[in-house]
């Protein structure tokens, strides 16, 4: 689209002698033009989208023939947009011309005549600003609530139409993500006791073949041999008593002999020809 801010200046009078200087940019006009073009563009996009939606809803096929000869609605919309653009371009030109020719005297007159109304307007604007500042928290909260609710509903609506799991599976490299996780650190932060508290030990035990396990344990530790040894060690309580009493008598006699020989029990044990095995 042609830039409406580019105005071709025609040299007057002296012709060649007068240097051609580019006009200084005029920011207000540029902003106005830019905003107008953006607005027209947005309207254009909206209109085109509306036309497309109407076509899809009405089931009208969009073939090459229809594309070559646009229907009436599209023609009218296009014409309206073109007219709007031309109007904006003309308005911008006229406004620029007016501002340059009538700007200084108008500002002088306005500055001298409208001082009192301007002050009144400033006071009014100040009061409005004060009112806005007082109402601002409530208004912002309401706006936030509305925005959050609207966003949530919109997100829900979008998510209902998407299979997020499938999207993640298709597009996310999960192995790469897992590889970047320091599992050791994660495990260190785990409360193993808490995990153990949540374990259902009974179910784990129920899955074990306890009978087979018991048989293996009995076989490993040779339990029958232990039972034989235990029962054979002491035939009866009386035998244990006799053994202990004879042991006591042995110790007493050894003590007497050691005192007679003037030696200690350790010297008695320290036999140069002592057995390697007993150490006694």
């Amino acid at each position, binding site marked *: 689209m042609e830039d409406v801010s580019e105005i071709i200046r025609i040299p007057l009078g002296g012709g060649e002698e007068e240097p051609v200087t580019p006009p200084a940019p005029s920011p207000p006009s540029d902003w106005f033009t830019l905003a107008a073009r953006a607005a027209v563009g947005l309207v254009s996009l909206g209109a085109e989208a509306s036309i497309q939606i109407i076509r899809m809803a009405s089931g009208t096929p969009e073939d090459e023939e229809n594309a070559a000869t646009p229907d009436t609605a599209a023609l009218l919309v296009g014409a309206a947009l073109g007219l709007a653009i031309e109007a904006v371009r003309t308005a911008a030109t006229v406004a620029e011309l007016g501002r340059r020719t009538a700007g200084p005297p108008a500002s002088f007159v306005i500055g001298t005549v409208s001082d009192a109304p301007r002050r009144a307007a400033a006071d009014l604007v100040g009061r409005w600003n004060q009112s806005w500042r007082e109402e601002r928290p409530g208004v912002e909260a309401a706006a936030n609530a509305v925005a959050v609710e609207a966003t949530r509903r919109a997100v829900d609506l979008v998510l209902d139409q998407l299979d997020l799991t499938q999207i993640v599976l298709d597009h996310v490299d999960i192995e790469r993500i897992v590889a970047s996780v320091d599992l050791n650190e994660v495990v260190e932060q785990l409360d193993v006791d808490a995990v153990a508290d949540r374990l259902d030990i009974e179910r784990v035990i129920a899955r074990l073949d306890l009978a087979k396990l018991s048989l*293996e344990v009995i076989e*490993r*530790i*040779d339990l029958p*041999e*232990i039972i*034989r*040894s*235990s029962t*054979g*060690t*002491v035939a009866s309580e009386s*035998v*244990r008593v*006799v*053994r*202990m009493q*004879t*042991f006591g*008598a*042995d*110790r007493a*006699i*050894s003590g007497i*002999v050691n005192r007679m*020989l003037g030696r200690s029990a350790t010297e*008695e044990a320290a*036999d140069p*020809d002592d*057995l*390697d*095995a*007993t*150490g*006694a």
Partner: protein
Amino acid sequence: MRETEPPAILTVPAEARSFQGERAGIVSRVLANAIDFAILVVVLGAGYLGWSAWLFLRRGASFRFPTVTYQGTYIVGAIVLTLLFTVAWSSTGRSYGDRILGLRVIDRRGERLGFAGAFVRAVLCVAFPPLLFWAIVNRRSVQDLVLRTAVIYDWAEQPRNTSPSDPS
């Protein structure tokens, strides 16, 4: 499952663990020998009755109990006792008297005696019983000193926990 040695379980009663493996004193050994001697008497009496029964079956009405001399009894008793000791010490390491008193005869390596060692020790013990009383002095009889054997407290049924590394 890994094939490892099962843990050794000490079957000795708690009150006897403190002196398990120590050399036995004279009282225990004399009592054990007394029991063995009583058994010898029973065996000799049983032998005499058996021999008498055999003679009764052979002679019938002319049967008379055989006359036993002291010398013959001593010789037979010495032979029987030697055999009893030899078999007991070379097989289980303990005679019946030793078993009752919780004793065991071992060699200098802490192991059970071989048949030859058991026989020599049995001959010496039967021939010179008083030499046992040298055990009053240092808990080793003269036979033990000569043959480098020992009699220890061992309440366990099997000769376990008599290895050199075990505290005793």
